[in-house]
């Protein structure tokens, strides 16, 4: 029992340390974002004819080297696409245009590229639509937990669940910050899975405690 408590204390200390380091990391190093969520250059390529993505990938990799590149189809006619990179120099853009015109036998006078500098998507803009739904659903769940597990103590159960929800999401954010894991399209789904799993885990725990307490009371 003492060892279990000691282990629990150690776990809490480790969690607290991770969260503190995570918060410091956010302020000092800021968060890392994926290519699509950070500032990037989008090059719209209008070929006017069907293309093979493999060929475009090959040419792009020759031009942009090791940079991460994202390819998106423009419209549904399969004759134009968008190439997204972190940065593209004038030389690289010219090189890309030359190679594409050569590959697809396009007149040298024709303009086939349109370069756009795209701003970053702010972290708060990503999270904002989820804040009110999460707050409302958390309040609803806390109200349910308080009523259902009255015998276990309203404050104890609601506070435990609330703390678990806050700490789990803070831990996730800290791990993302410390590990410099880029925030992207998968981040909010993972945060939601975590939120739901914490609720399920807590409810299962409360149910077991309630069943145990009811059994003890019925024995008395």
């Amino acid at each position, binding site marked *: 029992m003492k060892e279990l408590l000691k282990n629990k204390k150690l776990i809490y200390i480790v969690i607290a340390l991770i969260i503190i380091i995570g918060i410091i990391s956010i302020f000092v190093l800021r968060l890392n974002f994926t290519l699509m969520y950070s500032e990037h250059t989008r090059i719209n390529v209008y070929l006017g004819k069907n293309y093979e993505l493999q060929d475009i990938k090959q040419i792009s990799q020759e031009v942009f080297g090791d940079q991460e590149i994202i390819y998106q189809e423009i419209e*549904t006619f399969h004759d134009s696409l968008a190439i997204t990179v972190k940065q593209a120099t004038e030389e690289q853009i010219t090189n890309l245009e030359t190679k594409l015109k050569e590959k697809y036998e396009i007149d040298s006078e024709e303009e086939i590229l*349109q370069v756009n500098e795209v701003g970053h998507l702010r972290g708060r803009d990503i999270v904002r639509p989820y804040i009110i739904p999460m707050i409302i659903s958390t309040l609803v769940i806390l109200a349910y937990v308080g009523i259902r597990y009255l015998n276990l103590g309203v404050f104890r159960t609601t506070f435990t669940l609330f703390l678990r929800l806050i700490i789990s999401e803070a831990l996730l954010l800290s791990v993302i910050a410390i590990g410099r894991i880029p925030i992207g399209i998968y981040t909010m*789904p993972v945060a*939601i899975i975590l939120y739901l799993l914490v*609720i399920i885990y807590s409810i299962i725990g409360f149910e077991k405690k309630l069943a145990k307490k009811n059994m003890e009371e019925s024995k008395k």
Partner: protein
Amino acid sequence: MKNNRLLKTLIILIIIAICLISFVGIFVKDKNQRINILPDYLLSTNLSGARVAKLDVDTSSNEVIYDSEGNVSQDGENEDGTLKEGYTKKEEKVNPDEILTVENYEKSKRIIEKRLKEYGVQDFNLRLNNNNGQIILELPENSNTDTLLANITYVGKFEILDSDTKEVLLDYSKVKDAKAVYSNTDFGTRVFLSIEFNDEGKAKLEEITKTYIETTDEEGNKTTKKISINIDDETLLETYFSETITNGTLQLSIGSASTDSEEIASYLDQAAQVATLIDSNIMPIKYNLDTNTYLSSALNKDILQIVMYIIIAIVAIALVYECVKYKLKGLLASLSYIGCIALLLIVLRYTNVVISLEAISALIILLILNYTFVKNILEKLENKDLSIKEITKQVYLKYAWILFPLLLVSITFTFMSWIPVSSIGMVMFWGIVTIYIYNYIITVTLLNDEK
């Protein structure tokens, strides 16, 4: 015994049919080709693609004519194009340099965001480039996207002018509220744009409605003094008043009275869009819609496929484990499990649930829940002292307490307007309902060995 076997065989065939329908489809012949009559999955922008519009700060200039008193004049030119005496012409930037600040860029972005929400756009991204004020807008592709983009760049300068002299009689600063309303008439439903003015505007409106009327002189000649209602110097309509308005609310008819619900919806939409423009703050900066293209999802399809295969592999391993541990019962339970997932996917198609990445995360939770649900039934079946009825009651009661709070969360999320959030709610709601009902009817019957 024989009846039980027959029932189980029938159930297995039903499960196989559900799986085939869900994973393959129902194909019928239509005009010499085979089409799948099962509705397609509705995918959100992060899975399918989005309309991407680039809004650039308007850097053009306009020629503005001033009269001798320094007032802007609309008729300062002679017929031959030369300026009238005392009039001057200046070239003025649409967006003067002093207003091109980060603060104004941010304000414009907030106004656009507010307008999008009021237009009912439920899934969008807005990016601002603080260096040049450029805004990239990512919207779902649907029948309203083009209209929306046509209206989004309006500054929102609402004015009521004298049609002849172009004198500004009332403007946006006196507007308290604007909304789309409708009323039933003998000829159908009529849609109105209702503009409510503040106290100052109310007094001015009363004055205008007394002045801008149709009059008949002694000889019977009619003259009308008209007003123009403009947004961003574009005339919405010209009209005069047949009665004095004393309540401070101007109601403008949009379209004609109709009994056709689609037509009425279209008029309401138009009225609502104009109301949003008038009601939201005036944008400090004028933007132009530069480019407007549909871009497919940036999701790496290869990574998504790998993730799907990993999920399928984990499910397969878990089911194989059940088959090995519980033998025939495990095999039947595994088959039932796959049938439940197949049925849920059919339900999601028919209930038009939008599938987003967030909804897929809810589906993963449901996969885990369904697995533990079925596993619980299998574990309790090992206890020969309990009847199937008692086992069902125990497991259902246990899971009721776990699933009920999740149902509360899903209902809360369903009522949110933001699509990725509401899609989680809908997937979870249908998932919980399907798990509960399907397992009661199919799984329990399949695993029932009682005579």
